[in-house]
Structure formats: C-alpha cells, structure tokens
C-alpha cells in the first residue's frame, strides 16, 4: 500500500496524514505527531506499553495499522488533562507512585481509562484478566497498580470484590 491520506482524530484534533496505511499507529503517534508517551515495547502486541484509546477502547498501537483507525478517535496519555477518566487514573497513579521505571505505566493507565470509562463499569476480576492478557510490568510494581485499581473502583462506587 502506498502513501495516501489517512484521516483520523488524535487527541481531539482532526488530522490528515500522508502515510502508508500499513504504518503502525504507534509509529504515526511517535514519529509524525511527536506524541512519545506511548512507548516502544515489543512491537508485537504482548507488553502493552504502546496502548492508546481508539473510540474509547484500549488498543495496542504497535500492531494496529493506521488504515484501521481511519475516521476514528485516538486518545493518548498526552490528552489526560482533557479526558476526565484518564486524568483521574493518572492522578491516582502519581499519588500512589504506582511506577518504578514507568515504561509500562502509560499503557496500563490507558487500558484502565478505557475499561473504567465503559458502562457498566467492569469489576476487578475482569480488569485483572484484561491486564494479564495485554500488559507486562518488569519492575514488579503490580501491588501498587492493584491498589490504584481498588482506589479507582472505590472512587466510582464500583465493586472491588
């Protein structure tokens, strides 16, 4: 597929990119849009460090071709200030210092923002199953992430069982 115009919305701004449709969304975000908060991790969909929201749902941007998000709404960590749920998640993570190196953290926060933004809000077990499937953390900061999840669920009156 050659370079062609790709229309999408990134953090609330409509953009048209002249880029090969098979280019990964991660590469578009980092290299074309200078949005570096989505990380380069494994580039094969295992570690989740690159997770962003597409139409509100968590998606691993490293193995998402940009053609597949044409016409859709992409949200990255850089938009936290304008995104109430994401900004709440970010605040709890910073308050609890739920990170060590922080490389995997933005992806985890994006996933949590996506899941907690759903209605009805998923329970803790569902969230953990989702994290198991799509996120890795090597520093071992899981305990603090779990604390953050409990706090976020409690803030919203969700079940923590």
């Amino acid at each position: 597929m050659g370079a062609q115009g790709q229309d999408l919305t990134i953090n609330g701004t409509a953009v048209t990119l002249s880029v090969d449709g098979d280019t990964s969304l991660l590469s578009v975000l980092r290299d074309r849009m200078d949005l570096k908060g989505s990380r380069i991790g494994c580039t094969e969909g295992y570690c989740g460090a690159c997770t962003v929201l597409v139409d509100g749902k968590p998606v691993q941007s490293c193995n998402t071709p940009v053609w597949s998000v044409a016409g859709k709404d992409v949200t990255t960590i850089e938009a936290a200030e304008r995104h109430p749920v994401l900004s709440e998640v970010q605040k709890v993570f910073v308050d609890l210092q739920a990170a060590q190196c922080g490389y995997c953290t933005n992806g985890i926060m994006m996933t949590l923002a996506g899941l907690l933004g759903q209605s009805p809000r998923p329970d803790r077990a569902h969230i953990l199953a989702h994290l198991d499937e799509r996120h890795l953390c090597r520093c071992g900061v899981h305990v603090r992430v779990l604390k953050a999840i409990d706090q976020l669920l409690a803030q919203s009156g969700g079940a923590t069982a």
Partner: protein
Amino acid sequence: MSECPANLKANPLLSRWFRLDERPLMGVRSGKVELGQGATTALAMIAATELGLELDQIDIMPADTLHGPDEGYTAGSFSIEHGGAAMRWAAAQVRELAAQAAASVLGTTADQLVVEAGQFRRQGHNEGVTYWQLRDRIDLEVSALDLPAPVLHGGTIDGKGMQRPDLVGKLSGAGFIQDMSLPDLLHGRVLRPDHPQDRLLACDEAAAQALDGVVAVVRDGHFAGVVARTDEIALSALALLRRSATWQRQADLPPDDGLNGWMDQASPLSTCFLDEAQPGPSPAIRHAARYSRPFIAHASIGPACALAQWHDGRLQVWSHSQGIYPLRRQLARTFGLDHDHVNVTHAHGAGCYGHNGADDVALDAALLARAVKAPVMCLWTRADELSWSPFGAAMRMELSAGLDEAGQIVAWNHAVWSPTHLARPGFGDGVNLLAAGDLAQPHARPPLADAPRPQGGGDRNAVPLYDVGARKITHHLLPQGPLRSSALRALGAHGNVFAIESFMDELAALAGRDPLEFRLAHLSEPRGRAVIEAVAKAAHWNPDDEGGEGHGRGLGFARYKNLGAYCAVIAEVEVAETVRLVKVTAAVDAGEVIHRDGLLNQIEGGIIQAASWTLKEAAGWTQDGFKTRSWADYPILNFSEIPAIDIVLVTHNGAPSLGGGECAAGPVAAAIGNAIAHALGVRVRDMPLTPERITQAIHA
C-alpha cells in the same frame, strides 16, 4: 561520619556535584544514575536536607562524563550507601560555604544562621539572603578535601505523598532515551543472528542500500547495520539484510536439559576460599542436596537504545548504561580515542535490573553514526533484547552438612558452579561490548573473571551467616556457557540463598525442629535475629502448623552480600494444579532510611521479580539457537498472580544506609521453595518451581 566518603574523595571538586545558576534552583549532579529505582530522587532529597532546600528547588542534572563525578557503576544497591554518603557530605560543605558568605552579608557569624527553603537568616529574623543572592560569593571550584568536615543533618524523609520528579513527566508524555529527538536525527538498526555461536559471513548490502530513505549500510567484519531517515525504513532494510544473510556457526550448543547438565562438560576455575574443615567426631546425621537455577533474562520492557554523534573526531553518546564512565573508557578503547574525546551522557531507560544491552547498543550506535554526518539513534529489536542482552548466570549448588546428637549443625560444605555474573564493560582488561568482537579488527574480551569477594559473583552469599561449625566453601567459575551471562540483580545471591535456606529447612526437618527455632538457634548476629523475629511476628508464624493439603508457608533469610541489608521473608502458598503465591511478608533492616516510600517500592518490586524468576522463568536454547525471541517464549509473573505483600522495616539506630533493591531476591526464592515443600511434603530443588517439576517431585 567523620571521614570524607570515598566517592567524594575521588571527585573532590564541588562544582562537579553542584551548580548555582540564575534560576532559583540548585543544580545537583550525581554519578549515580536513574534506573527507574528512584535513586536520583533519594539523592536529591539528601542534598535538599543538607542544603536546607525544598525538593522542588533542586534541579537533578543528568550524569555526564564531562561534567559530573565518576562514581563507577550504579549497581549492587550502593547508590544510597556510597553515592548518598558522598552527596550528603558535599552538600553539607556547600551549605557551610554559603553560610559563611551569608554571615558576612548579614553581619553575623555562620553559627547564628538557620537556612530554610534556600534562605539563610538569623534566628528570630525574617530578612535573610538566599543561595542565589550569594551566587557570586560561593566558590564551588573548591576541593572538598580542602574544607573542614561538615556538620551533617541526616534524617529520614517519609516521602508519603511525595512525587518523584522524573515520574511526573514520564507518566504524562516523553521521558525516556527512546523519546529523545535531535536535529537531523537518523535511525539505525543492527543485524544479529538467531544463534549465539553464529557469525555473519555475507548479506545483500546493495539491496538494503537501494531502499528509498536508506542513508548508509554499515559493514565492518562480522558487524552489519543500517542507517535510514526513519526507523520504519531502517527496519525494512534490516529485514532485507536478514533475509539475505549467511552465517558461520563457530560451535554447536550442548543440549539443554533444563537442569544445567551442560555444566558437567565445562572445566571450572575452582577456588576453595573458605576451608575450616577440622578433624572431629563423625556427626550423627549427614545430609547432602543439590540445587539449581537456569539462565534468567533481564527482560527489560524497553528495548536497548542509544544515540551517538561524531564531530571533529569526538564522540558524543547518550546512553541508559549503568556505568557511563566505564562505557566511555570502553568506547575510547574501541575507537582508539583519548578518553576526553568521548562523552557519555546518561538518559533514562526502562528498568534494566543489571547489565543488559544498554552498553552494547551504545557501541552499535557509535559504529553506525561514524558512517554518516548526523546523529543516529540505534534501537534493538524485542527479539535481540531477549536473547542478545546478557543473561543472569545459571547456577548449581551442592550442599552437605552434619548434625550432632542435639540436632545442631557441626559442619557445612557449599560448592557452587556458575559462569560469570559480572562481565560488565570495563571490568577486566579487554572490551566487553558485543560488536567489538565482530569488527574486522576485533577487540578481545577480558579474561574470565567474576565479581571479586567479599561481594562476590557466583559465590555471592555462598557463606552462610549461621553458626555452622567448620565451613568449606568452594566457587567453581565456569567459562562462558551456552548463553552470555553478566550481572542480573542480586547476582549469585538468588541461587545461593535459595540453596542455603532450602537446606536449612531440610536440616531442621531431619532434626525434628521448627525451621524458625532452628535458624535462631544457629544465629547469633543480632540484626539478623531481629528481622527473622520481626517477620515471624508479622506473619504470625505458628511452629505447630504442619501444612499439607496444598497449603504451606516457608521462611527465607539472608543478609545481602553478607554486607548489606538484612531481609527475612515468609511466603504462603496454595498448591493445586498451579502454585498460587498467596502472601509474602518481609522484614528488612536497611539501616538509616532516606526515602521510606522509595525503599518500600524497591523491596516490593524485588519481591515480585524474584517470585517471577523462582516460579516461572528460564532462558533456554535449542540446536537452532536462542529460545527466547519474544515475550511468548519467556512468561513472567502477571497481575492475577501477584501475592499480597506486607513489609516491615526494622530500624536500627545510627546504622548507615544500605541499599534495599536486591536484598529480597534470595530470601523470596527460598521462602517459596520452603512453602511448597511445607504444602506438599516433597521438595523441588531446581528453579523454576513449575507445576511440571512439582508433579515430577511428587511422583519421584
């Protein structure tokens, strides 16, 4: 403390540590680097405390070989113990210099002054003068050795609610070396084989060169890489090189039996470094056992990355290395440059947990950048990160001991076989950067060596802290094994403590004694006893709990390196088809605590990572080469497998700070092994303690 700390003695010029500029900030530069462990925040807190500044008045400057102090590697849990001691002393000296300048401005004497938020004032007065107002009167171009010993304030900062300045940025956008941008930056990728013994013979350089956007194809001996306008193009060019590459196999690998059988064929360099064997009456009971751990991957979440730029025969490198000075010397040696023609600036990377590919990729970037007139960022692939980064070394431990009639240990033998745990660049004579051996004019690797005692590498923590009668401890250093090995968090302590503490439980069982009571009966060291007693209390240790039916609890203890922090751990497990780690309780004595929340975070992370190594991780190989090319090949602990964690900090008045990031590794491994044995009545002595191994042990 009455003597100038060693790291300051070696870098006595205060201007290497501090900078006062026009902004109302104090620039602070340590030689210890941020690895995601929060070290620079703790060091800034030490500086702030001594200087009388708020933390947000400190500007943490990146470590840099041109401007900063040389503090060697950031490793071995020494950042606070050594780096913090130097920072504290130097900061206190700067405060005293400033106080003298303030006294002359305010017309008083320094001892009449207090300093708060950077302002010196007389007690009871509101007016004062700040560091920045005194800027021209404070001479930082002065040697710490020419100044009197300062008064140190010291003290713990709770840190609850305090935010690491670097994390605030990372958690909202860019912040890592992979995120760096420079004018005209080009992107590089390097070709590496799938087999550790393969060398590149040929590849279709012309095809890669012909790709639109490729700036250079770099070939030097067995080294090959590409430089392109974008990383995507570099990856496409790399794929062309890989598809066309032919390799020469220098040797086949021995079979991987998962139990280090390859060690039988290796010729060790053996040192019996402690031999107290004395003739005496034969013990009533003798016992022997063998334990093992496999190679373990560092498995950083971020792939190795470096930036390099050449200008007028000088090399500038940005690296997430743990040792920017040793790396600078190794790069200078590789390129035949004077040291002062190479500068390495530290940039934050993802957690590394030891010697991973950070240094190797720095040479890769420098080799690629030499071929173009622009800066180059070189990034490793996930596959190379999981296979070409050095691994934590495989280990085999054989223990034997005797018990007397009273059930006390009377003799103790410990022998450990392992390839090196320390092949960091700059350690030993030679160049230990991956590509250096591949060049047309190759550089030899340093001769075989391991981390020297008393800290030790493969023999780290091989000497038990217990009173065990005559001890005989032997270290068998093996030549490089099937996989390249170097420092992984805790080095040999993970395997040795697993073995010693498993063996202590086995001996206690033979003596018919409670494992907790048995340990205390062999331990006179008061700080060691204190953490064991503290963890037993916190976890409600019950000597009458007979375990079984899949439920068990186990204890593990060590003083890290026999020199560092004390740590005792109790693990609770439920064993059915899988091992569920229910709870880990730890008691840690790390001396004076600088940043309580930071220390807790490090211990928590150490516990979880060690649990992951112990229960799940092994890096293997086949005749075709590496077996770990993707996360699918190398599972680590996931979110639903995380135990509850309870940490008790045991304080010890006046004891100096000891690092906390590595102390839990061995005790956690042993506590899990002992808990599984307590639950099932059978013991697994080979890590990882997988369901398959447990089933085998049950049916053995």
